[in-house]
């Protein structure tokens, strides 16, 4: 697929006549279509150098995936309706291509253009179409619904196996029509015009901290970035576009709370305490919907864990989860529209944006952020190692849960302060901690699922949604969780050993042990 600029002086009638004089052309009816360029909220397609658009016409949804780099079409398909998530795509071929790129994220509109299209088909003696030529007038759709002129282009679409014919058309457009080939896609042109910066959202905290900066100033910057993530995900959470909005929202909330709880002496208590409570509240109101999201995301795995003839028995559980997801989501939206939530954000932002004062009695406020980070990360590591070493084959599960929480706190600190340390070493440490967290997280999830499946069994019974077969299937799953818990505990030793190797402990000491401690 190639595109050419059409000079403003060339009229449609003139182009048509000249094209018909050169090639056997069949003219189609002119039409206006809207093209929606889509990507995930966090630009997963763009980051992999793809552009993706859909056009809804009377014959269905035309979907095109092309290279962002050279505008080359990679895949095109006509669907009966536009897909939102990869799971919606019926075509296995397309799903295989898009699912690894999209993950569980939904496709959302990033940019829309209105196209006045004049279609022409280059046909042979059998009236077989060998190429499509489109004269297109593009207008950018603005937020207020109005449009703004972009380019007028000729787009030539190749039909597989007839590339020679297309080359002939290219040649004619260049030499006879004197049209220049366009390298930049309409998507890029449109984004430049609207000043959209693709790829700018990230759920990761990537604020660069200066090691010598004051702790209060640096923490305010980090917490502000975290608040930005919360607010960026608010709309998607309310609209329930995909489960990642709420997930990222909650991670940012937990990170904030964890930091406020761990680092004392930087902010006044009168600020700290109400905000710890406020973020705890935010965590609690978002929890039930997230639980339902998690169960629904795991539902296929639940079914797969059962014998084929029993898989259908779980359908009532799916209905129950959908029903309760709807209820919890409604409640969550209600809470996110309260004055309490609005004020929380407003006051928190006001505090974070207020410049730090020169003179303060707070003991840590003026300490360098590197020093503060060292102290807290070192403390958190020591706690993880102490708790980890105390885990034995027969120790109560509670000890593993406590270790999981300590690992989580350490992870947040490492992520908050990673810009203060060498990137490659931090990456290595976080990776090894992440592996340990995954084992501990799975262990915790299984324990939680055993309890919540029992609760759901009772609730489903009360709501008249339980059948004897479903009860049997759910109990089989609970047995399955129990057996998984055992194997998960067995995996702990290896992952903990990998995290707490001598080499790692030397590295932790070298990187994080505060200077004062080193002297001692």
């Amino acid at each position, binding site marked *: 697929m190639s595109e050419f600029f059409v000079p403003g002086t060339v009229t449609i009638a003139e182009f048509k006549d000249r094209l018909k004089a050169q090639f056997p052309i069949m003219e189609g009816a002119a039409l206006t279509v809207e093209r929606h360029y889509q990507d995930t909220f966090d630009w997963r397609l763009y980051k992999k150098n793809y552009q993706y658009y859909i056009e809804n016409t009377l014959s269905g949804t035309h979907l095109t995936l092309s290279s962002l780099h050279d505008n080359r079409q990679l895949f095109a398909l*006509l669907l009966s309706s536009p897909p939102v998530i990869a799971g919606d795509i019926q075509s296995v071929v*397309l799903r*295989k291509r898009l699912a690894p790129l999209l993950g569980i994220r939904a496709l959302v509109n990033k940019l829309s253009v209105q196209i006045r299209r004049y279609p022409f088909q280059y046909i042979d003696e*059998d*009236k077989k179409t060998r190429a499509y030529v489109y004269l297109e007038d593009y207008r950018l759709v603005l937020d207020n619904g109005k449009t703004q002129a972009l380019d007028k282009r000729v787009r030539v679409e190749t039909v*597989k*196996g007839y590339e020679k014919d297309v080359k002939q058309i290219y040649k004619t457009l260049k030499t006879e029509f004197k049209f220049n080939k366009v390298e930049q896609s309409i998507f890029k042109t449109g984004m430049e015009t609207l000043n959209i910066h693709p790829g700018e959202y990230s759920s990761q905290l990537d604020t660069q901290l200066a090691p010598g900066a004051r702790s209060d100033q640096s923490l305010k910057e980090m917490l502000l970035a975290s608040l930005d993530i919360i607010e960026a995900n608010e709309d998607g959470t309310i609209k329930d576009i995909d489960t990642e909005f709420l997930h990222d929202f909650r991670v940012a909330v937990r990170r904030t709370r964890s930091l406020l709880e761990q680092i004392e002496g930087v902010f006044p208590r009168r600020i700290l305490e109400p905000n710890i409570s406020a973020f705890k509240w935010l965590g609690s109101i978002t929890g039930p919907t997230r639980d339902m999201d998690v169960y629904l995301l795991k539902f296929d795995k639940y079914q797969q864990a059962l014998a084929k003839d029993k898989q259908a028995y779980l359908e009532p559980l799916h209905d129950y989860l959908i029903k309760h997801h709807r209820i919890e989501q409604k409640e969550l939206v209600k809470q996110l529209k309260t004055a309490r939530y609005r004020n929380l954000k407003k006051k928190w932002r006001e505090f974070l944006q207020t410049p730090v004062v020169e003179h303060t009695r707070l003991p840590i406020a003026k300490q360098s952020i590197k020093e503060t980070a060292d102290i807290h990360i070192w403390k958190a590591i020591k706690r993880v190692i102490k708790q980890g070493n105390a885990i034995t084959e027969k120790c109560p599960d509670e000890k593993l849960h406590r270790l999981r929480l300590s690992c989580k706190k350490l992870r947040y600190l490492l992520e908050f302060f990673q810009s203060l340390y060498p990137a490659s070493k931090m990456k290595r440490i976080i990776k090894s901690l992440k592996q340990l967290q995954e084992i501990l997280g799975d262990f915790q999830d299984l324990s939680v699922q055993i309890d919540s499946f029992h609760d759901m069994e009772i609730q489903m019974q009360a709501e008249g949604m339980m059948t004897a077969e479903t009860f049997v299937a759910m109990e089989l799953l609970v047995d399955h969780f129990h057996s998984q818990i055992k194997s998960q505990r067995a995996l702990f030793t290896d992952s903990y050993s990998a995290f707490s190797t001598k080499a790692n402990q030397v590295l932790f000491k070298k990187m994080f042990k505060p200077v004062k401690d080193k002297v001692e």
Partner: protein
Amino acid sequence: MITISCYNIKGGVGKTTTAVNLAYLASLDGAKVLVWDLDPQGAASFYFRVKPKVKGGVRRLFQKKSVTDNYIKGTDYGNIDILPADFSYRNMDILLEGSKKPRSRLRKILKSLSDDYDYVILDCPPSFSMVSESIFYASDVLLIPTIPTPLSLRTFEQILKYGDKKILGNVKLLPFFSMVDRRKNMHRAMIENPPKKGPAFLKSSIPYASEVERMGIKREPVTVYAQSSAAAQSYIALWKEIKSKLN
């Protein structure tokens, strides 16, 4: 990728019209479809207005381990491509007989397309030969259009008789009645009492209709130019039933 073959030992039973219409209906579901016109007569290629020509003929195609884009042509329907017929296909049997592992030849070639298509529909030549065996081995589903006449049913029985487990392998057999003329007592009687032996006939059947014959003039699937006709509606019902069997 699911490979569906329209097959019968007998000619003129509606294999090609079935292949072309089902390909179109599958494409309407948002699937990417390849039609491989294996019949040297090239009727499917004709319906799609594609010249029945494969560069280098079947010999060169078989030398390759995969089908490259050089051989495939896009049709006028965005989701459907075709690997056209070629007159050299008449020698396919001789080539297969002389090759190593002739049975798995087509399957191997089709495997190279598994990331590109949801369905491959093979329009098969009317024969019972090494080509047929290779088709059986490559297919997930064998659609057998059968005219409700004694002679046609005899050929259906022959497929079952000669096509034992060794030859047919695990292919799912889906026979259905084709070119049904309900004015004829014999057609009606046979549909009401389909063969009891072998795989059950599908409930859907395709009527004998001038609309279908017009495909030769229109060079389009009947489901495109006469969507509300009885014939088109029968193909829609047939495709729906086939999909339910695939699931």
